[in-house]
């Protein structure tokens, strides 16, 4: 999925002006930007963002995953000090780093969370004014039940059974509403579609299963 979400974040940050347009098509387009990856897991998204020059903080509530992420990061010395992992929850990190980040990314996390209002509130608190939040998640539709649970968990075994609870999936409009209440305006919602035969992700107009969202925090709350 990185072939979609990394360019989405990179180009989104150029669009908002957070990333310096002179750095387009250079080795470190995101240099100088602070990004927090909330629910970073094993660091699948944190590492590429750090390679693009950003200072990335990956946070996760699971100590085990943070350890996996740290071990994996050691395999590529080029990541250096641009990548840090902390075993913490978003609400705790808000106290340590309020309004610290140019971007918050949270990929495939919110569909596991019960109190989405509270979670997104914390995410937005981590953001500087005019900062960007990037989310990827699953829609709550019949298609996502068939594709995300029946196919992915039971037929194709792409993810372990019981990974997802369909009831917790969130529709784009609902997500947009919560973000609006937190003072963020949505700039873009894009569907993503997975082809299990070629193991490739593609952008799609169809947001019925997977989608990505980019919202920008207001200048001042």
């Amino acid at each position: 999925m990185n072939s979609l979400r990394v360019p989405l974040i990179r180009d989104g940050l150029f669009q908002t002006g957070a990333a310096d347009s002179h750095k387009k098509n250079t080795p470190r387009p995101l240099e100088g930007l602070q990004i927090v990856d909330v629910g970073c897991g094993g660091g699948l998204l944190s590492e590429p963002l750090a390679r693009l020059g950003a200072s990335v903080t990956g946070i996760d509530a699971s100590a085990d995953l943070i350890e996996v992420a740290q071990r994996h990061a050691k395999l590529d010395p080029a990541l250096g000090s641009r990548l840090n992992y902390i075993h913490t929850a978003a609400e705790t990190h808000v106290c340590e780093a309020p309004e610290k980040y140019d971007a918050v990314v949270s990929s495939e996390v919110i569909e596991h969370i019960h109190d989405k209002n509270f979670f997104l509130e914390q995410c937005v608190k981590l953001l500087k004014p005019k900062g960007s939040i990037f989310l990827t998640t699953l829609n709550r539709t019949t298609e996502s039940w068939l594709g995300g649970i029946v196919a992915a968990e039971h037929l194709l075994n792409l993810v372990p059974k019981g990974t997802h609870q369909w009831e917790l999936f969130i529709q784009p409009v609902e997500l947009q509403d919560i973000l609006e209440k937190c003072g963020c305006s949505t700039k873009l919602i894009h569907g993503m579609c997975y082809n299990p035969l070629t193991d490739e992700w593609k952008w799609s107009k169809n947001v019925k299963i997977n989608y990505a969202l980019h919202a920008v925090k207001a200048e001042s709350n």
Partner: protein
Amino acid sequence: MAPIMFLSPVTMAFSNVSKKLLMSHAGFICNSSLIQKCHQSTSGSQHYDIIIAGGGLVGTAMACALGSAKVLSEKKILLLEGAPAKPITLKDTYSNRVSAINHASVELFKHLSIWEDIRGHRVQEVRKMQVWETCSDSLITFSEDDLSNPVAYIIENDLMMWALSKCNENIPNSSVRYSAKIKDYAFPHSSDVNTPEVLLETGEKLSCDLLIGADGINSKVRSKMDTMVERTDYNQMGVVATLSLSDPTNNIVAWQRFLPDGVIALLPLSESTSSLVWSTSVEKAKSLIGLTGDSFVDAVNEAFLKEFPSNPFVESLLKNLNLSPGTDKQIPPSINGVQENSRAAFPLGSINVSRYVNDCVALIGDAAHRVHPLAGQGVNIGFGDVQCLADQVAKAAYQGSHIGKGAHLKVYQSERLYETLPKMKVIHFMHTLYKTSFTPAVVLRSLGLSLVQSMPLVKKQLIKRANS
């Protein structure tokens, strides 16, 4: 008078060029920035982002293409070449190793800003190709409308090598190590290493995030990969030579004739010089090399001009189908001399490799595929690999991916297999079809050639395909 007057300024210009080449190359050898360009890794080996094994045309072009990509400008690139550094001198006389370069390769040269350099020296445009055989009168010609645009360019390998080396020398993050004898490799898929390691004969160890094998038909990189190799030995040798024409001519046609025991091609170099590529049986090749100059010239002229008894069945068939070549057929220029020491022979074989990539490793050029020279596609397919792999690596890097791991190497592999496999099959098929005088095969090839010759749109597609 005119041709002589035309030639002398060219010759003079070339003497100057040779001196310039020597000088610029001296700087290249003395390049001592290697140390700045790599860092010491924790295991005591020197680490580079990309190591390319094999500093031939394709390997050097790879270093240039990667090094000139803006998003890769911080990647440290090392080119390992087994041979010692030697200055490339372009002599007044033509080298016997030339290539027919297609438009896609020219685009790569333009992208590397070396095309003007190459063309400024000596490049012969081919405006038309004529292909014919011995068993029937069928023939095919390829040209753009009104001969207005070249269908290919004949360029000496040395000239391309010189331009590519100069280009690589000017890339700050790319360096070359000559006389680099490789003892062994360790790859992540088969050894307990995280990234590829290169062990040199000197005992020195290098490591990298991406290793590119451009080490030719007997690739050592490939032998350490998890891949299957299918070899075809044609039991043929390619004989090359630089020939002088009896009369100076507007030399813009490439000639190729399928003979009972091989293929002979005459590629234009200048108004009075052409290059020979003759694939023939091993015995015949050896005897051709041993002939006196005059007898060799006679053999070449005979191969192009000799009338063979044509297959009467095929002739009448072509006639009845109204596919007789008529006035299309032209006669190639006659040869009157062979340049001293320009004759050489090399074995011909083809290889087909099941996969071009492993974790952190990729093959390019002859290491991945080798074809019979009859279609003049070999180095062009290699340059195609270079462009494709450089694009994929740059794209992956700009996406924050590790340049050796990830889907981009597989994308490179599938794009190149899709592009090269059909070409390899067609070339092999042509070789098989033309080495016989068996009537059904003659019918098939004559009809095929004549039909295509009568269908300009199909020919356009063929030219397009050969140029991609």
